[in-house]
């Protein structure tokens, strides 16, 4: 009996390009055929097991929400904190001083400052590099740069943190000796930007390449230059994918931990000065979990409230990205 992997002999007048599967198992070796009832039973059991596995991912989300919600509610039951102060307060001072303050805004501001620096570096640079790779570069250049990007997307973030601390900060200090201290938002922001650059570039490039060739051909036929074609036709056609890539990169920057823990410093303050020392939400969590606070105290519980805020922020970003991809995707085939 012929195995599944073999291609049938060509027949005149029939479609001959049936796909064959070089990896297929030889089904004749799978044992003797079982009764229909046995096969149906086995099928049921397997589907049940697979469905259970799929439910596990729902369970993970549920567990995240339950854990964060439970501990955050516990945090708000302390006398020192109130909902109003947490969402309206501009002072975050949980560890030092006689009076503790729990206003989330300084941590959010620190996170946003680092994210804005990272995004303003990585988004334009990444998009332009993506346009180059997709529309201008020769296949050989593309074949070299694309895998390089994929490897760089996998570099551990602690490496970028080390780079910020030992290369970017000294460079900034040399450029402007009196402005930059050993910890500052600029250095952490730039390193985070370098970290998200491969993500932006690689995902935007995927979106650009998904635009069908016929659109480009049409635009060229109308007399467009390569610039006209890529910027006025291809980029708008791929916009939903590009925006989704941007949002994913931004949510990575918001949740980035090791870079800011190493390079941004530990002063929670509201500032737009890139040379200032800032503390982000993630850096605060690292500070607490590294053991600066006794477990089960109010400072310790506060990290859960911060984590919940962070979770909600990234969740919203992801949902917006998903929505844009679904709603504004241009289908061509």
């Amino acid at each position: 009996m012929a195995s599944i992997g073999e291609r049938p002999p060509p027949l005149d007048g029939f479609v001959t390009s049936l796909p064959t599967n070089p990896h297929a198992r030889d089904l004749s070796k799978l044992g003797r055929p079982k009764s229909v009832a046995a096969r149906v039973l086995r099928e049921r059991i397997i589907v049940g097991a697979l469905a259970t596995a799929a439910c596990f991912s729902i369970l993970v989300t549920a567990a995240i929400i339950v854990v964060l919600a439970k501990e955050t509610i516990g945090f708000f039951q302390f006398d020192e904190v109130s909902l109003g102060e947490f969402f309206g307060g501009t002072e975050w001072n949980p560890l030092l001083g006689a009076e503790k303050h729990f206003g989330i805004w300084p941590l959010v501001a620190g996170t946003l400052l680092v994210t804005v620096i990272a995004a303003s570096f990585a988004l334009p640079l990444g998009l332009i590099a993506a346009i180059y790779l997709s529309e201008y570069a020769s296949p050989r250049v593309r074949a070299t740069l694309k895998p390089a990007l994929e490897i760089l997307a996998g570099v551990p973030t602690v490496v970028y943190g080390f780079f910020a601390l030992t290369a970017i900060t000294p460079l900034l200090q040399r450029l402007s000796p009196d402005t930059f201290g050993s910890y500052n938002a600029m250095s952490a922001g730039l390193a985070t930007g370098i970290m998200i650059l491969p993500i932006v570039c690689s995902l935007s490039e995927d979106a650009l390449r998904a635009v069908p060739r016929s659109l480009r051909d049409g635009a060229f036929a109308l007399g467009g230059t390569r610039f006209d074609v890529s910027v006025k036709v291809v980029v708008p056609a791929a916009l939903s994918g590009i925006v989704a890539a941007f949002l994913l990169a931004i949510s990575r920057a918001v949740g980035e931990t090791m870079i800011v823990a190493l390079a941004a410093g530990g002063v929670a303050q509201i500032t737009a000065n890139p040379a200032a020392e800032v503390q982000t939400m993630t850096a605060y969590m690292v500070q607490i979990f590294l053991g600066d606070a006794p477990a089960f105290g109010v400072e310790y519980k506060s990290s859960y409230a911060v984590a919940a805020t962070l979770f909600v922020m990234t969740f919203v970003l992801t949902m917006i990205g998903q929505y844009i991809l679904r709603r504004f995707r241009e289908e061509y085939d």
Partner: protein
Amino acid sequence: MAAVRSASTRLLANRAFLTLCLAATSIAMLVLAILLLAIFVQGWSGLSWDFLTGLPSRKADKAGVFVALMGSLWVCAICGLLALPLGVATAVFLEEFAQKTRFTRIVQTNIMNLAGVPSIVYGILGLTAFARMFGAFGTNVEDAITLGSEESLFFLRIPFGSSVLAGGLTLMLVILPVVIIATQEALRAVPGSLRAGAFALGATRWQTVWGITLPAAVPGIMTGAILAMSRAIGESAPLLVLGGALFVSGAPENLMSDFAVLPLQIYNWASRPQESFHAIAASAIILQLVVLFLFNGIAVFIRQKLQKPLQ
């Protein structure tokens, strides 16, 4: 409507944009080259056999990465053994079995969301769910239920505490969405006519998946799995939250051992003020990058050699 511009203006714009593109790409590549160069310059001289096999030390010139390397190995092995079957099973269910119902759409959206959750949040979940087990078994180490002797490889303690097992489980949560999404893409790339052929021969859904679809998707799945594992090896934030101890004296001996991992060791050294510790942090980073390149190399190899095209 914009005024029609002359051909020379448009060609000039084209030329200017190409220059901009080249500049942007060169800047990006230059920055990344400087990054690698800076680390190699700082860390190259510190690499030696003693560094590889050395135990942690308070003195930078005597410290080594052996304990952290073994910790990474244990944690990632546990993580991979759990995440791969679970992730592939979920993807197979979603792609090959599930009808496009409301439930599967929710599961799908949920997986995309999980992929966007910051890893430090998974650390908090791991700490609460695995290390402390929601406080259901008391909060003191002395109250923990133990099974087997502490010398045995199969020693088990409930709750898990900051152990290798808790670390592996936490990392499993981090890479699970990555594995699921990669597997789904690999399964989607298998042409539908192969499935139709199997069904026409009277195969059941599972026989089709096991005999036809999965084998065809294996190269794609393996590539995705290796990239997910290289992510797991580099993760440090969740393990830091879990209490992945920064000062551990020996390599793990069983599932309940304390552990250090390489990225946490790098963080520990990099966060100290002394230059000498920065130098060995750079050496450890070189090791970490070598592992990363190795993993990516294997992934590229699999993609090119094993992925026979479906003609």
